[in-house]
C-alpha cells in the first residue's frame, strides 16, 4: 500500500485528508497525474512531498512499497 495525504484547501477540495492506494510500480508523476484526473486538481496549486521531502521533479522517481505522498497547497505558517 502507499499512503496519500491531502492538506488545507486540497483536503477541502478532495473531501479527504488521507487515503491508501494499492501499490503499483508507477512513477511519482504518473501517480500525481492519476490524482489530478480523479479529483480535477489544478497542478499549479500544490507541491508534492515524498516521505516528508518536497519533490521538484516527479518524472524519475518510481514509487516504493509504503511510500507516503502528500499534496501540499501554499504554506501559511507564521
Amino acid at each position, binding site marked *: 500500500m502507499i499512503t496519500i495525504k491531502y*492538506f*488545507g*484547501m486540497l483536503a477541502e477540495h478532495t473531501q479527504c485528508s488521507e487515503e491508501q492506494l494499492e501499490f503499483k510500480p508507477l512513477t511519482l508523476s504518473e501517480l500525481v497525474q492519476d490524482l489530478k484526473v480523479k479529483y480535477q486538481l489544478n497542478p499549479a496549486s500544490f507541491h508534492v512531498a515524498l516521505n516528508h521531502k518536497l519533490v521538484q521533479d516527479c518524472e524519475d522517481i518510481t514509487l516504493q512499497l509504503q511510500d507516503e505522498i502528500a499534496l501540499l497547497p*501554499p504554506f*501559511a505558517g*507564521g
Partner: protein
Amino acid sequence: MKKKTVFIEGAISPNFISESIAKHQSKHTIGGHNIFLGQVRADVIDAKTVAAIDFTAYEDMALEQIAEIREKAFETYDLTCMHIYHSLGKIKAGEICFFVFVSSKHSKEVYAATEYLVNTIKKNVPIFGKEIFEDDTHQWKTNIK
C-alpha cells in the same frame, strides 16, 4: 535529528511566554534574548473581516523541516538556546499563533537569527491556514514573499 515540541493546540498565551522566559534566568551566560511573536490580524479582505485563522500542519514533515532549520541556525549564529512554537487549531484575531525565542551570550546575532528562523519557517514548513471571516465564510491564507 531530535524533534522538539513545536505544535501547541490553541493560542500561545502570554503566560506561556513568560514561563519560557523565566526558565532562562538560571542560564547565566545568556546576555540577550530575542523573541518574535506572530499575532493573528483582523485583515479586511473584500469588505469581510478575518475573525480567526484555523491552522493545520503536515506535522511529521513540519517537525523534520524545523529540526533542519534549527540545526542550520545553530551552525550560522552563535546561539545558546532556540525555541520554536506554532499553534494548531482556531486562533482568534489578536491571539498569538507563532513564538520564536532565541538567546545568545551577546545581543549582536539574535536579530538576524530570529529573522532567519521566522522567514524560513514561513517559507519551508508545511503549515496551512484557513482565514475564517466574521460571516463564517473562509479563504486559504498564502505566505507570499
